[in-house]
């Protein structure tokens, strides 16, 4: 009996995020009668889609012990490029937008790997550069979309499920599979855990890190396309501060900022929790400034917990070695 109790406790601790999500759904459905329907559950997924897609790339990057502050800039830049090129056709504009966004990742990766610059300063710089370029290209005004069929990406649906949710699921399954069952994914954990031993084990660290940056920007570019197709507008000021929000979601989901730990399943839970928290605050009609304040508090709480947990783990590790 005691053992069973212990097992249950362990299960709850391991799946604490799931329980928080269930709790929040309960609160939401009490507060808002119309909430507990399949439609509104889908609408939560729909709401978090932009953050969710970007969070996959960010998780993979965070696991390798690096991170990217330029994702918000990439997202906005992709939208601007796509909408500026729309006179040349749907296919070309979308492809060029996606490539332009991914190119930022190539730049980030090269500067970090070849230039050996701190990832923080590189991505801070590229964030400013590409936000500025986006503003310059769009003359600081939002651009309206010209091709109606482009909106299908974000607004259309297959068999009642929104396209965006389908994309979200595909990209999470892909991320989960890559991290769990491919060499590329396993190397990610090795690099994040200990760079030196990863190098000694024969992992090409530079090449891998480069691809993690490129993939991170690719997901950001994809999110930018989804966002712009949904609102049918592109602006270079979209998504201010979104990078932090995404990092917080990943860390909430158990990915460590110190690298080597985490996964996309946790990340989607983190994204959902943060998304529902916003929903709760909207339902309870909280002032926008207080919403921002509580977002900052949540992020700080998450980071502090991460630091405390990883310190305890380090102490436990030392004890075991002794």
């Amino acid at each position: 009996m005691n053992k069973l109790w212990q097992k249950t406790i362990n299960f709850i601790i391991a799946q604490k995020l799931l329980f928080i999500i269930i709790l929040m759904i309960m609160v939401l459905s009490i507060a808002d009668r119309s909430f507990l329907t399949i439609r509104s559950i889908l609408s939560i997924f729909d709401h978090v889609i932009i953050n969710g897609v970007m969070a996959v790339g960010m998780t993979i990057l965070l696991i390798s012990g690096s991170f990217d502050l330029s994702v918000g800039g990439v997202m906005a830049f992709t939208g601007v490029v796509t909408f500026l090129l729309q006179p040349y056709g749907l296919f070309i504009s979308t492809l060029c937008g996606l490539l332009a966004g991914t190119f930022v990742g190539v730049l980030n990766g090269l500067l970090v790997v070849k230039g050996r610059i701190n990832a923080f300063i590189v991505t801070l710089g590229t964030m400013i550069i590409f936000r500025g370029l986006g503003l310059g290209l769009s003359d600081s005004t939002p651009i309206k979309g010209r091709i109606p069929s482009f909106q299908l990406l974000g607004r259309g649906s297959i068999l009642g499920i929104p396209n965006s949710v389908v994309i979200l699921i595909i990209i999470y399954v892909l991320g989960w599979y890559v991290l769990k069952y491919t060499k590329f994914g396993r190397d990610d954990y090795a690099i994040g855990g200990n760079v030196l031993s990863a190098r000694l084990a024969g992992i090409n660290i530079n090449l891998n890190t480069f691809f993690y940056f490129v993939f991170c920007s690719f997901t950001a570019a994809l999110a930018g396309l989804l966002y712009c197709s949904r609102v049918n507008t592109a602006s270079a000021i979209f998504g201010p501060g979104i990078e932090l929000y995404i990092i917080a979601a990943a860390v909430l989901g158990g990915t460590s900022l110190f690298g080597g730990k985490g996964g996309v399943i946790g990340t989607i839970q983190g994204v959902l929790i943060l998304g529902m928290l916003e929903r709760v605050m909207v339902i309870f009609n909280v002032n926008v400034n207080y919403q921002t304040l509580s977002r900052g508090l949540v992020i700080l709480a998450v980071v502090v917990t991460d630091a405390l947990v990883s310190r305890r783990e380090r102490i436990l590790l030392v004890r075991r070695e002794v």
Partner: protein
Amino acid sequence: MIEVSIKTTRIELKKIFLRFFYNQAMIIFLIVLFTTLSIASGSFLTIDNWLNIIRQTTVLGIMACGMTVVIIGKGVDLSAAAILALCAVVNVMLQPYGYPVAITAAILTGIVCGLVNGFLIGKIKANFIIVTLGTQILFTATALIISGGRNLSSRPERIFSYVGAENLLGLPLMFYILALSFIVFGIILHKSASGRRLFATGLNDKAALVAGINSSNVIMGSYIVNGFIIAVSSIILASRLPRIRVGTASEYLFDVITVVVLGGTALSGGVGGIYKTAIGLLIFAIIRNGMSLLAIPYEYQQAIKGAILILAVLYDEFNRRKRLLY
């Protein structure tokens, strides 16, 4: 024999020249920039323009002192602009209760903000980037809540506008405050025991710990000093601008990091100095002024600033490798 010695002397000379070049490249760059702009724009070398440059960069320069301290201690304060906004808002809101109260409250606010950052980073050892990004949101939201998101107009009290507007011996009063803060920070960083502790901690915090330095306290102290000096610059900001809005402060963050990095203070910690930041400030101010004089659109100015930041760090990295060779 003489042949050989001449040859070695030549090699020595070459080495010395290269070392000089790599060490003083920023000054050389400054001179080149200065000359180019003087030729390119007729209004660059006027006294009015230079007074203008001084007025525009004082707040940035004072903030850069604090940021230098933080970066030498292997950290970055991304909440700097938010602290600036919060202190300015507190200052302006409390002005009806008298000027001393307002200033004291602003400085206390800055110190408390620095304390929050320092405690989370130094004591709890959370990642400094995420912590300061989080506190950035927190402080901005607090400033917005206090001010209600409105534009706050500064009371036109005599002493208050004095700091921002008056001249002393032909130079703006602000300039003397800037110079004073550079001198004080230079002495603290380079001539005092706490400065040496900071350098040691930034270089290698574990080694510093073993050497008997309480590195978590040192790091905490660096953020508190930063909070304090940001509060001081917020007083000047509030006295210079007739209206304070929380959004106006946000662009200071990127500029202040660029200034420090441009000077050559390394983000890897433990390397740098106040004199480097002064050179960085001068270069940055001239570039910004030059871009305005050459009528480059604001959006592209932002992009160029980002490129300058990356190039500066890239140069610094190559410089370090070259210096190892020579």
